[in-house]
């Protein structure tokens, strides 16, 4: 909470302080609806033109288990969900003891005194505010609800404490509970107002988040998985197939529910292999289709993805990464699938790998993925992770009328067709779709066998080398069109941090922190991971050190997965890895400390 120190007033009316941003961490169990409070706060921030970013953990147990939701709301640029919280709201003893360390010194711990016994030794460091949240909720909405509703009661407490816009929150509650039994909304409003009215008079001050500058247009608020789903719809994707696996499942549920509105279908298949195969069938038959998965599900799909490379079939493969190998850490964050995305499968099988940097990017890059798949007739891996999948952000509403595209297949007859034409520009294949008449009567076969230009099998070494080159060259052609990433910070200096995917926020914030302390640190973020844009060596040459910051193991040679790719391409020993696999998003201070340690070596 910059600009103001939280403290206890010496009685009387609470004083009002203006702050630029606040980090609130809510800790409880997964069934307490704490994600709902976080969601309301994030959505409210979006409607108030503030920036917002969230972070949540979910247990991998079937029901229950500790869970947290952290939300950071600010009037300036918000890059991460925040290292440490200003306010910790905790429902249980385990939430209190487990998360007090994530609270800033002198921060406020707001606890449910029905369940939490505060510790004497922490009284001096944190401002404790105990409220019997459970019993007051029951009092407010009647005894039948038991544990239900205390999340909304707590939302009322927070709303009072941060002087949040009550009419807007009431409207959000109304929208959330719309269509249900009206008594549910009435209960929610009763709980909210009880919390709001009972706001602790022993809290010394309330806070107002300064208004941010007017942004152009409205903001929309969603998480990364939603942004991907809607991005695909905007791109014109009308068919997908998948199998449930965390944390990919949200996307398939969304597409199953939404695609029928657009005349499309998403099919739940018997297994991962069937789903990638069915998506390829639909791509072959009409337009780019989507499949996706996480963890082991991706491994199962790799044979069919190899076929897509060989047959040059467009396909979008969403990979919401999680901790691996094998079942690994299903609900934790990791970036350890870069290798399988770039190389997974047998044979020489070049394909495209994209990695969005934030939630807004998930939307726009999903469209880019579809268009690259179409233009270069290639499978495209789309790498996100559990952190970005469930992270809620607000971003400027896209102009859907301009963005939405129709990619229906063109079935106009053609005179002749050679799908694997070696003379095609940049080696790019363009399949024509079944239903298209070919006037010379020669029809193509999409195939996984090495093939001649019509798709008929060929075991000729010459043909294999020529077709291998064709499949390679088209991705080199794509690479040549990719923009170089902008350097965050000065283009020359001591240390360059290189990141990819969901880690852009904490890396940039680390750069800000270094520069504020007078250290020469800049960063670039790679969103196109395979092929890489050309010319990165010119950026690297401006720095003494190039540290690749990734959430994966450093590996046998100590440089991590992207680090290994960059080393292979640039043969530059100043490229070093900064890696971790604790299953949580980077904290800014972790990056800062590891960079300092690495630079000393």
């Amino acid at each position, binding site marked *: 909470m910059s600009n103001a120190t939280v403290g206890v007033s010496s009685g009387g009316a609470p004083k009002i302080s203006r702050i630029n941003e606040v980090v609130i961490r809510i800790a409880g169990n997964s069934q307490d609806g704490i994600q709902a409070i976080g969601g309301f706060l994030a959505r409210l921030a979006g409607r108030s033109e503030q920036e917002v970013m969230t972070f949540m953990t979910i247990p991998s147990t079937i029901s229950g288990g500790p869970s947290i939701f952290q939300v950071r709301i600010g009037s300036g640029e918000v890059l991460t969900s925040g290292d440490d919280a200003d306010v910790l709201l905790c429902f249980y003893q385990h939430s209190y003891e487990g998360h007090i360390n994530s609270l800033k010194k002198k921060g406020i711990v707001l606890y449910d005194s029905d369940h939490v016994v505060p510790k004497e030794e922490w009284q001096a460091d944190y401002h404790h505010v105990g409220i019997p949240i459970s019993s007051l909720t029951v009092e407010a909405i009647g005894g039948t609800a038991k544990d239900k509703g205390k999340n909304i009661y707590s939302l009322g407490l927070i709303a009072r404490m941060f002087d949040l816009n009550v009419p807007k929150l009431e409207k959000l509650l109304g929208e959330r509970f719309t269509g249900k039994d009206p008594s549910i909304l009435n209960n929610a409003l009763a709980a909210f107002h009880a919390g709001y009215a009972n706001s602790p008079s022993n809290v010394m001050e309330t806070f107002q988040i300064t208004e941010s500058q007017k942004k152009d247009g409205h903001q929309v608020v969603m998480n990364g998985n939603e942004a991907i789903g809607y991005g695909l*719809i905007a791109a014109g994707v009308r068919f997908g197939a998948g199998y449930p696996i965390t944390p990919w499942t949200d996307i398939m549920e969304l597409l199953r529910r939404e695609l029928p509105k657009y005349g*499309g279908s998403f099919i739940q*298949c*018997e297994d991962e292999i069937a789903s990638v195969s069915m998506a390829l*069938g639909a791509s072959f038959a*009409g337009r780019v289709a989507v499949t996706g998965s996480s963890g082991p599900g991706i491994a199962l799909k790799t044979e069919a993805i190899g076929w897509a490379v060989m047959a040059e079939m467009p396909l979008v493969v969403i990979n919401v990464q999680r901790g691996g190998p094998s079942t690994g850490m299903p609900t934790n964050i990791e970036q350890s699938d870069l290798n399988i995305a770039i190389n997974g499968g047998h044979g020489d099988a070049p394909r495209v790998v994209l990695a969005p940097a934030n939630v807004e990017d998930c939307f726009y890059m999903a469209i880019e993925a579809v268009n690259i798949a179409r233009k270069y007739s290639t499978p495209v891996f789309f790498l996100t992770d559990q952190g970005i999948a469930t992270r809620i952000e607000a971003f400027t509403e896209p102009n859907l009328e301009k963005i*939405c595209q129709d990619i229906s297949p063109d079935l106009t007859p053609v005179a002749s067709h050679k799908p694997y034409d070696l003379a095609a520009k940049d080696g790019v294949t363009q399949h024509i779709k079944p239903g*298209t008449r070919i006037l010379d009567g020669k029809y193509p076969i999409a195939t996984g066998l090495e093939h001649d230009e019509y798709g008929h099998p060929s075991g000729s070494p010459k043909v294999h080398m020529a077709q291998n080159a064709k499949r390679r060259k088209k991705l080199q052609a794509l690479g040549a069109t990719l923009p170089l990433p902008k350097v965050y910070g000065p283009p020359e200096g001591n240390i360059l941090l290189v990141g990819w995917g969901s880690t852009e926020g904490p890396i940039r914030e680390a750069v800000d922190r270094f520069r504020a302390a007078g250290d020469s640190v800049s960063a670039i973020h790679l969103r196109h991971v395979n092929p890489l844009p050309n010319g990165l060596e010119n950026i690297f040459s401006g720095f003494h050190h190039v540290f690749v910051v990734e959430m994966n193991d450093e590996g046998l040679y100590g440089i991590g997965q992207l680090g290994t790719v960059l080393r292979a391409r640039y043969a530059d020993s100043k490229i070093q890895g900064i890696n971790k696999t604790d299953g949580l998003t980077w904290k800014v201070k972790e990056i800062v400390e590891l960079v300092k340690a690495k630079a000393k070596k």
Partner: protein
Amino acid sequence: MSQTLTEKPIVPAVATETATGERKGLTKKEIAADHPTWCPGCGDFSVLALYFKLIEKRKLWHEKITTISGIGCSSRFPYFVQAHGAHFIHGRALPFASGVSLSRPDLHVFAFSGDGDAFSIGGNHFTHTARKNIKMTLVVMDNQVYGLTKKQTSPTSPLGFKSKTDIWGAVEYPINPAKQAIAVGASFVARTTASNPNHVLATMEAAMDHDGFSFVHCLSECVEFYEGAFDSANPRKGGAFNEVPKNHDVTDEMAAYKLASADFPGNFGVLYQVKKPTKNAREAEINASFQSKFAGQKDWQILQKTFDRMK
């Protein structure tokens, strides 16, 4: 609204429907592509020839049929047909064909497979494609042996069959494909044998006309690795070709199951056929009910409504 799953085919399905009459039905020469790479005497030649005949007879156009396969001797099929086709990976022809069928209601989708491809590596997909009743025709050319890899035991090899992986004779009980198909909910199940061309043609034609997942189990001899496997079903070799009894009720699941259980070579013809909604029809219904709520709106306007709720 872009062209969708629920819309009518863009081009008429058969040659006779042309207004100008410029296109005649295709000749065998126009349908044949690469010369088949099968061994001389292979039963698959017969199935291919009868597929050509089916296309000729029903005046199907090249572009309106899609021929899909996995891996195996039988699965070389698409290369030999002048039509849009795909030679996919081992065991996965059915989900691939499902993707075609579900996104393109205007095409006839044929999948050709073998006993290893359909019942071993692809066994899971056989079950679920049948269960979902996805509209397509699956012809499995069963030779009861792995031929492409040169004589290993297949899931339909009979007990005692000597192969390179069971030199003492197969010790595992074989799958009965027709029984399995009936049990998992296939809506059309027929048996035929490559040695009886007229019967193959009639069976494929009935399968093609069935609105749903139609499964044709076709015995097709491998003369290299399992010669004489089907002699008992071939009158020319001293066997007996027994058709499904005339009084058999094809909608009677138990009766069909019983017929399918008969000792080899059993009965040939349609064992089971019922009308039930296809997955294709169900999905189209879901789409129609959703789309009626958004009649006249462009795709971006529908998406805008969703975004408005996320502000």
